[in-house]
C-alpha cells in the first residue's frame, strides 16, 4: 500500500497553499484558490504583518503599499468574477495533445483536481467520482465501488494525487474561452481563470466612468464610457457604441465581409447563399457523385470537369432511369399487395364453397345412381306424346356421380365428361318444365375450353406462380358451378318424370272412362234413333190408324231421360279432366283432354 507518499505529498501541498502568496498557488491550482482567496489572503496578510512588525520602518511602508495593491487587485478580481462567470474547465478547447493517461476515464478530460482511491490506486477527478457515488450516500463520507475495478473504496479528506500530475494537467495549453469573441490567447489551463478575470481583452469589466453602472469589454475600457447611443453606418440601427463592434462582426446585415476563399466582399445577409451556392472558389462535388465519381473541384472549374467526366455526362440518364426504376418498384409493390388481397378473397370464397359443397355431395353419394334421360338427339323435335314419354322412361340410363371424396378438386376432364353426358338428355327431355337451361351450359363449356390457356389443374401440387394458382382456383370454381348446375338439372328432370308417371295412370283411367262413355252414348244414340224411327212409323200409322199413340210417347220420354243421364256423365268426366289439367298445367295434357272431349 502506498499510503504514506500521497499523505505526505498532500500535506506538503496544503502547507504550500497556506504559506506561499496566491500568485504562486494560482499557477498550480488556480481554480481552487480563486474561490477561497479571501481567507488565504487574510492569513498571508497577517503573516506579513507579523513580519512587518519586526522590520524597519521603510519595510513597513513597502508592506503597506503591497497590501493596498493586493487589496485593489483582489477587489477588481472579485468584481470581474461577478461579470465573468467561472469557467468550466472541461468545456475548454485544448491546444496541446494530451496523453490518454492524463484523461479522467469518467469525463474523458484531463484530470481536474484529481484524487486517487487509496484502495486500488485508480485516479479520477474529484467531481466525477463524487457524482458517480452520489446515489450511494453514506454519512461517513463519499464511498462506493471504484468505477474501473469495482473495489469498494472511499474518498478520505486527504485523498489527492501527487503534485506532479496536477502540474502536468494544469500546464496543458488551452484556447481562451472568449476565442469566439476574438481573443487569440492560448494560456495554460491553470491560468485561464486568471486570464479571463484579469487580462483577457474580451472579458467584461465595469465601465470606468463613475456614474455608469454598465459593463464593458476590457480592451475598450481605456476609451472611457462607451455607453452612449450611436447608429450603425450600414444598417442605420441604433445601439450603444460598446456593442457596435460585435454588431459589425456578426449581426449587421448590410456590412460587407470579405470571403476568405474568393477574396470577394459579400454582404453579411448574403453570406449563407454565397458560401453555399455562389462562391467560385469553394469546392463542390462532381454532379456524378452518386454514381461513383469522387472528385471535387472548385465551382469555377466544375464545368471543365463535367465535360471530361463520364459519370457527369451519364448523370441525367442515370437519374431518369433511377426514377423510373423507383416508380416501377412502387407500382409493383402496389400490384403485389393487390394480388395478396385477391388471393385472400379467393381463398375465403373457396373455403365457403368447400363447406357448402358437403351437402349436395352427400346427397349425390347416397343416390349416386341417379336415373337420367339418355341422349337421343332425334327426339328433340318430337312433340310430347304418351308414347314418347314411355320410351323415354324405358331408356333412362344411369349416371354415376364421381364420389366427392375422391378429390377435393375434381379434374376438369371428369367434369367435361359429366357435362357432356348430362346435357344432351336435357335437350331431349321433352317434358322438361320451366325455361330451358340449354343456353346456360353450352357457352359455359365453350368458354371453359377456349378461354383458359392454362392446362387444367390436374393435381393439387405447388403452382408456378400466384397467378397460375389463382387461375387454377378459378377453373375449379367453374367446375363446381357446372357440377352444381348439372345436378340441379338432373333433379329437375327427375321431378318432371315423377309427375309424368303419376299422371299417366290418371290419364289412362280418364281415357278408359271416356271410351266407356262414348260406347254408352253410341248405344243410347242407336236406341234413341231406333225409337225415333219406330215413333215416326208409329206416328204415321196413328195418323193413319190413330191406335198406338200413348205407347210411342212413353218410349220417347224414356230415351230423353237416358240421353240426359249420359250428358251428365260426360260433364262429370269433363270436370275430372279439368281437375287433372289444373294439377298438371301442361299443354300436352290439355291437348289430350281435348282429344278426349272430341271423342266424347
Amino acid at each position: 500500500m502506498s499510503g504514506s507518499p500521497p499523505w505526505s505529498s498532500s500535506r506538503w501541498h496544503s502547507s504550500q497553499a497556506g504559506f506561499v502568496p496566491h500568485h504562486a498557488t494560482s499557477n498550480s491550482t488556480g481554480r481552487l484558490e480563486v474561490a477561497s482567496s479571501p481567507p488565504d489572503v487574510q492569513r498571508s496578510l497577517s503573516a506579513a504583518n507579523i513580519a512587518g512588525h519586526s522590520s524597519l520602518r521603510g519595510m513597513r511602508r513597502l508592506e503597506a503599499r503591497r497590501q493596498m495593491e493586493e487589496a485593489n487587485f483582489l477587489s477588481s478580481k472579485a468584481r470581474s468574477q461577478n461579470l465573468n462567470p467561472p469557467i468550466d474547465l472541461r468545456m475548454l478547447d485544448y491546444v496541446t495533445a494530451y496523453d490518454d493517461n492524463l484523461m479522467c476515464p469518467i469525463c474523458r478530460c484531463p484530470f481536474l483536481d484529481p484524487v486517487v482511491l487509496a484502495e486500488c490506486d485508480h485516479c479520477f477527478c474529484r467531481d466525477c467520482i463524487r457524482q458517480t457515488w452520489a446515489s450511494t450516500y453514506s454519512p461517513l463520507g463519499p464511498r462506493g465501488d471504484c468505477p474501473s475495478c469495482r473495489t469498494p473504496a472511499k474518498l478520505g479528506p486527504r485523498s489527492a494525487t501527487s503534485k506532479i500530475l496536477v502540474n502536468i494537467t494544469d500546464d496543458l495549453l488551452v484556447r481562451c474561452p472568449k476565442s469566439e469573441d476574438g481573443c487569440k490567447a492560448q494560456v495554460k489551463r491553470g491560468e485561464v481563470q486568471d486570464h479571463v478575470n484579469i487580462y483577457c481583452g474580451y472579458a467584461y469589466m465595469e465601465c470606468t466612468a463613475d456614474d455608469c453602472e454598465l459593463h464593458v469589454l476590457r480592451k475598450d475600457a481605456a476609451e472611457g464610457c462607451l455607453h452612449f447611443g450611436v447608429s450603425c453606418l450600414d444598417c442605420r440601427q441604433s445601439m450603444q457604441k460598446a456593442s457596435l463592434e460585435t454588431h459589425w462582426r456578426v449581426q449587421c446585415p448590410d456590412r460587407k465581409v470579405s470571403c476568405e476563399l474568393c477574396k470577394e466582399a459579400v454582404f453579411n445577409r448574403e453570406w449563407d447563399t454565397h458560401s453555399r451556392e455562389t462562391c467560385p472558389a469553394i469546392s463542390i462535388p462532381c454532379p456524378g457523385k452518386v454514381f461513383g465519381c469522387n472528385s471535387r473541384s472548385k465551382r469555377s472549374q466544375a464545368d471543365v470537369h463535367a465535360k471530361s467526366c463520364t459519370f457527369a455526362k451519364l448523370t441525367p440518364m442515370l437519374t431518369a432511369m433511377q426514377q423510373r426504376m423507383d416508380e416501377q418498384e412502387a407500382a409493383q409493390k402496389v400490384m403485389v399487395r393487390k394480388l395478396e388481397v385477391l388471393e385472400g378473397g379467393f381463398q375465403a370464397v373457396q373455403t365457403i364453397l368447400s363447406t357448402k359443397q358437403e351437402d349436395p355431395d352427400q346427397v349425390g353419394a347416397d343416390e349416386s345412381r341417379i336415373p337420367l334421360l339418355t341422349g337421343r338427339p332425334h327426339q328433340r323435335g318430337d312433340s310430347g306424346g304418351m308414347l314418347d314419354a314411355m320410351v323415354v322412361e324405358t331408356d333412362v340410363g344411369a349416371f354415376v356421380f364421381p364420389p366427392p371424396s375422391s378429390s377435393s378438386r375434381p379434374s376438369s376432364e371428369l367434369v367435361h365428361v359429366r357435362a357432356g353426358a348430362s346435357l344432351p338428355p336435357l335437350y331431349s327431355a321433352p317434358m322438361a318444365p320451366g325455361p330451358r337451361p340449354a343456353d346456360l351450359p353450352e357457352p359455359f363449356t365453350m368458354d371453359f375450353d377456349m378461354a383458359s390457356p392454362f392446362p387444367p389443374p390436374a393435381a393439387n401440387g405447388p403452382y408456378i406462380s400466384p397467378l397460375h394458382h389463382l387461375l387454377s382456383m378459378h377453373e375449379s370454381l367453374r367446375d363446381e358451378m357446372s357440377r352444381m348446375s348439372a345436378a340441379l338439372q338432373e333433379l329437375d328432370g327427375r321431378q318432371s318424370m315423377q309427375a309424368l308417371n303419376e299422371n299417366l295412370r290418371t290419364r289412362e283411367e280418364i281415357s278408359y272412362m271416356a271410351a266407356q262413355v262414348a260406347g254408352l252414348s253410341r248405344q243410347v244414340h242407336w236406341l234413341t234413333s231406333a225409337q225415333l224411327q219406330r215413333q215416326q212409323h208409329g206416328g204415321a200409322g196413328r195418323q193413319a190408324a190413330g191406335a198406338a199413340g200413348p205407347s210411342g210417347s212413353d218410349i220417347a220420354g224414356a230415351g230423353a231421360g237416358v240421353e240426359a243421364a249420359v250428358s251428365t256423365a260426360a260433364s262429370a268426366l269433363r270436370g275430372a279432366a279439368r281437375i287433372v289439367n289444373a294439377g298438371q298445367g301442361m299443354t300436352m295434357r290439355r291437348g289430350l283432354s281435348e282429344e278426349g272431349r272430341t271423342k266424347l
Partner: protein
Amino acid sequence: MANRLGAMSSASAANQGAKSAGNPSRPAANGNVIKRLQSELMALMTSPTPGLSAFPAGSDMTKWNATVTGPSDTPYADLTFKLTLSYPANYPYAPPEVLFKTPIYHPNVDMAGRICLDILKKGGDGSEGAWSAVLNTGSVLLSIQSLLGEPNNASPLNGEAALLWDRDQTEYKKKVLARHQEPEDVEAADVA
C-alpha cells in the same frame, strides 16, 4: 429521504465553496455530456475496433446508430446487426439505452430489441445493475458483441432460445438465420 437530500445538497454547497470553478453547473451538464460523447467518437474514429462501428444518427449528439458484426464461430457469424444508442442527460453517470434494430434471435434479447445485460443497468441501492461511469460506447458495443457468442441463459428474455441454445446448435442457427434481416431491408421496411 428529504433529510438525506438536504444533507447532500449542503455537502455539495460546501464543496462549491471549496473549489468553485470546476463544479459543473446544471445547464452545463448537457455540454459535458456532448463533450464526452465527442471525445468517445474521436476515440472510435481514430482507433476503430473490428466488427464495431458507431456514429451519431443526426445533428443530435445524444442519439447514435451502431452496427455490430456477429463474432465468428458463433451462430451469428457474418451477420450484421444494427443498434441504436440513446444517451441520458446525466451520462456517463447513467447508462445509455441500447436497442437492437435488426431482428435477432437471442436468449437475452426480446422481440422489441431490448437487451438484458447487467452493464446496461444502473447499479445502486438494491438494483443489480453493473453500469460504471468509466464504460463507454466502445466497451458497451464490445460487451454486446461478446454477449452474442456467450448468452447468459440463466436469465433469458427469450426462454425458447435459451433452451434451444443448450439443446440443438444447428437448429438454433437455423432460427437465427430465419429471424435475421439485412439492415437495408429493415430500413426499407421502415420507410415503407
